[in-house]
């Protein structure tokens, strides 16, 4: 009984360091768990439940029911066959440094062999732990790490202590840091930074509680929950709501050991600044939450999360300090605002002539010139007046030269919108400038106005074209210019605004603005954009074979976008119907016969009706002619794609009849060829809709 109880135990390892960047904490916890699992699995040490705890300075893992002893290991080595000669056998014995009595003969499906079976007694886990700690710390992956003092070890920030308890006892050992510096495993840690008290941990079961008593909430979710809870209480008390910002909440959770949520006020003098400026200034530099009043306007209050313990007198000081910092920040912002208001778009555009967009791609101003040219070919599809489109393109980047955007790059577009409005450009222009960086990723919405959608798409068309032309297309996981996101944006806008242009129409004009563009590059560029469509459709649950059957069409780059979209949707809808399945079987049969025939060597594909021997052939010929009419009339007609597909699908009857009654491989070559031509004509018409052979049965 005693033995059984002692066969497993709990392990606590805590890496205590100086403040680890907030953005790395969560991931480091995940990585720590994986590292320990890997280390124990590799050594045949079994474990139970694992808990990860992360804070700014503490990174800890608690592992329940860890084997106190490694499993005994059996290593089996196969030697020569049992009837092998002495030389072979001795070689085997010598190389393993064993005698014949250490081996045994075992039957395998390949015959009898000598085997050396070695039993290795499992070691005590606590003897192996130091080696595991070394392995994990030296192999730890941080997105960015450093050395300190004279160490060789790298950690996100200097590692100062390792608390290591197995069954509530310190595991003897140490971690070498390099240059004879070590950290000895200990049974203590430290509390909140404010007191920095050294705390002894006697029992793993009390670890979290003791730390909370010392004002460190180690469980990230608990800390986040406390912030959310206290935040909500403050909001309710002050009749405010939050400008929701989940990412900011995550970040703040990593900046505090014991959150103390407080409310501060914004001086009235700054409330006339655009709300985006206020909330950006608060968030980017200060990590403050913005609040909104019951009318949905930005309220003159901000919420921040301090790392100090709540104390009336200190809280007042801390609030006052934060208000003062914000005041300084906002008076800076105010200075930029006032200074920008005295400038014109011409002044900024003039500055942009000197700002390089990217080496070999001219200035940012040159980019707007290109965008203006591209707008000529795109504006109509967005129902935007061409001269207004061109003017908007030329004004769209001016704010990049403004002081406010210089300070807060994330306000690009937004500031341009404000300045354009205040200068008195048309409302449409201002709106377009404001929203033309949208969508900023897969989850963001697309611009609302037509002109905004147009401006956004031409900006992205130009960017993609430019970087492809200078050979900077993304490779593997590297996409430094976020070109995939641009391409995704183009597709999202095409879908959202129901733009019915072809890929060729979208890109040929922007490619014409560059010299020496090869056909291959154009194809690559258009395929790159279509690849994003593929991803969007897959995410919508459409089967890949359906998507591929359309996207592999030879004329895909000259097929209007909405037709592509509609065809895929229509095909996906009927794909599982019985009717379609029957058609598919017949089509594939037809296709296979053609593939194994010598039809491609024919000099012409004219069908001679005089060679028909059966009314079934005539019937199929009639069906072909009907389909030809439908296809000519409707293949590029957006509203009749369903009709087009249905016409194709209905062909299952004449095709089936044809196969049931007609033998293609007849002796008479002329008749045989004529029948093949009949089938060929039919296939060529059918695959104008989609490459049905790709679709799985």
């Amino acid at each position, binding site marked *: 009984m005693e033995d059984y109880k002692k066969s497993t135990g709990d392990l606590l390892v805590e890496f205590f360091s100086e*403040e680890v960047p907030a953005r790395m904490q969560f991931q480091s916890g995940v990585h720590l768990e994986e590292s320990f699992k890997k280390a124990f699995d590799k050594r045949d040490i079994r474990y139970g439940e694992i808990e990860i705890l992360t804070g700014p300075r503490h990174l800890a893992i608690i592992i329940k029911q860890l084997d106190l002893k490694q499993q005994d290991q059996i290593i089996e080595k196969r030697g020569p066959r049992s009837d092998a000669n002495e030389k072979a056998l001795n070689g085997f014995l010598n190389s393993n440094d064993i005698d014949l009595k250490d081996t045994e003969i075992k039957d395998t499906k390949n015959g009898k062999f000598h085997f050396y079976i070695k039993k290795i007694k499992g070691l005590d886990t606590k003897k192996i732990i130091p080696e595991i700690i070394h392995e994990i710390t030296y192999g730890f992956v941080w997105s960015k790490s450093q050395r*300190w003092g004279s*160490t060789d070890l790298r950690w996100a920030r200097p590692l100062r202590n390792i608390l290591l308890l197995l069954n509530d006892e310190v595991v003897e050992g140490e971690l070498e840091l390099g240059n004879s510096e070590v950290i000895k495993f200990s049974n203590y840690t430290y509390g909140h930074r404010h007191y*920095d008290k050294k705390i002894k941990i006697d029992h793993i079961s009390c670890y979290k509680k003791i730390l909370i008593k010392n004002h460190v909430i180690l469980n990230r979710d608990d800390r986040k929950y406390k912030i959310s809870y206290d935040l909500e209480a403050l909001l309710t008390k002050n009749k405010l709501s939050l400008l929701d910002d989940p990412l900011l909440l995550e970040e703040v959770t990593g900046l505090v050991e014991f959150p103390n949520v407080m409310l501060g006020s914004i001086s009235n003098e700054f409330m006339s600044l655009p709300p985006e400026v206020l909330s950006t200034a608060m968030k980017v530099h200060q990590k403050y939450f913005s609040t909104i009043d019951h009318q949905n306007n930005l309220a003159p209050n901000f919420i921040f999360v301090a790392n100090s313990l709540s104390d009336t007198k*200190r809280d007042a000081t801390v609030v006052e300090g934060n208000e*003062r*910092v914000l005041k300084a920040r906002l008076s800076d912002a105010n200075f930029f605002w006032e200074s920008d208001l005295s400038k014109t778009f011409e002044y900024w555009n003039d500055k942009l002539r*000197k700002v*390089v967009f990217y080496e070999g791609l001219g200035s940012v101003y040159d980019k707007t010139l290109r965008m203006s040219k591209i707008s000529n070919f795109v504006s109509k599809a967005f129902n935007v007046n061409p001269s207004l489109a061109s003017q908007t393109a030329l004004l769209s980047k001016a704010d990049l030269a403004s002081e406010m955007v210089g300070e807060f790059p994330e306000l690009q577009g937004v500031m341009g919108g404000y300045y354009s409005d205040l200068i008195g450009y048309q409302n449409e222009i201002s709106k377009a400038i404001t929203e033309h960086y949208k969508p900023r990723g897969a989850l963001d919405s697309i611009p609302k106005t037509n002109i905004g959608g147009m401006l956004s798409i031409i900006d992205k068309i130009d960017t993609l074209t430019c970087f492809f032309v200078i050979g900077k297309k993304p490779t593997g996981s590297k996409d430094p210019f976020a070109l995939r996101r641009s391409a995704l944006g183009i597709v999202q806008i095409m879908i959202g605004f129901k733009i019915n242009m072809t890929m060729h129409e979208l890109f040929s004009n922007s490619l014409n603005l560059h010299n020496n563009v090869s056909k291959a590059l154009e194809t690559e560029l258009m395929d790159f954009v279509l690849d994003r469509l593929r991803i969007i459709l897959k995410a919508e649950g459409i089967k890949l074979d359906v998507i591929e059957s359309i996207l592999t069409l030879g004329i895909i780059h000259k097929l209007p976008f909405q037709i592509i979209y509609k065809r895929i949707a229509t095909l996906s809808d009927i794909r599982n119907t019985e009717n379609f399945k029957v058609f598919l079987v017949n089509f594939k049969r037809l296709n296979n016969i053609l593939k194994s025939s010598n039809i491609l060597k024919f000099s012409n594909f004219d069908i001679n009706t005089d060679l028909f021997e059966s009314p079934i052939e005539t019937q199929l010929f009639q069906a072909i002619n009907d389909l030809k009419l439908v296809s000519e009339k409707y293949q590029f007609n957006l509203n009749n794609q369903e009709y087009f597909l249905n016409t194709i699908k209905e062909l299952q009857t004449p095709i089936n009849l044809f196969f049931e009654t007609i033998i293609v491989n007849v002796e008479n070559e002329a008749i045989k060829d004529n029948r093949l031509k009949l089938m060929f004509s039919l296939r060529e018409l059918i695959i104008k809709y989609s490459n049905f052979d790709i679709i799985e049965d």
Partner: protein
Amino acid sequence: MNKKLSFQNIILNLQSYWAGYGCALLQPYDTEVGAGTFHPATVLRVLGPESIWKAAYLQPCRRPTDGRYGENPNRLQHYYQFQVIIQPSPHDIQNLYISSLNAIGLNTKDHDIRFVEDDWESPSLGASGLGWEVWCDGMEITQFTYFQQVGGIEVKPVASEITYGLERLAMFIQKVENVYDLDWDGVDKNQGGKTYGDIFLQSEKEFSAYNFERSDASILLQHFIDAEQECNSLLSDNKNLLPLPAYDQCIKASHIFNLLDARGMISVSERQSYILRVRQMARSCCLAWMEK
């Protein structure tokens, strides 16, 4: 109630605190620099020859583009940093730093002190490090860096650099909202006491005008070329290297580049090449320094 520490007393207290710790107290470097880091006591010394190096000094810094003609209460083109460089970085450096705040009248127990990720990089020095900006009640008062590289060379052992932004710190301690209202000397106004504005306002106005409007770009360009040439020539003879004078020229080139930048004379594409030229000088100086 105790009188708030004056600007000069903050400097004096920091000096005596770090001298007490064992730092060599140095004086500001006597040429224009963009940050305390540029002082050879930091850039060159962390590369050797000794593996233990502890120094503290005040350094006036120039950032021409930050000039606001004395009209902005928080931005200056000339300001002070207090710099502490300790190599190898001690294990209790954070606590040493926190105690230093208490030494200048900032009772940390009454405030919210935080270390927020802020990695530092100086492209023109080819230097980088990991660390934090230190917040006191949301105000950034210090840059704290573990030097990993200087002049593109690994710093071994790692040095810890603490850079106090003195104006910000003083504004915080004195609870002043305009930098020009800072009490400089702790002497009453009617006794001839001076504020920061009394001493520097005129200078901010004149230098802003110089930096943004009046500097002669062609002369500056020539100065840059001269400095670069001089730097290279001082490092040209492998048997007779003069890294310290060469480094002076590197710092000068860096400042001239900043002046040209403020004048709007450098396009974004040129910018990169200027930075690379300064970085090349810095690297050559560092290598020559290690050579000696």
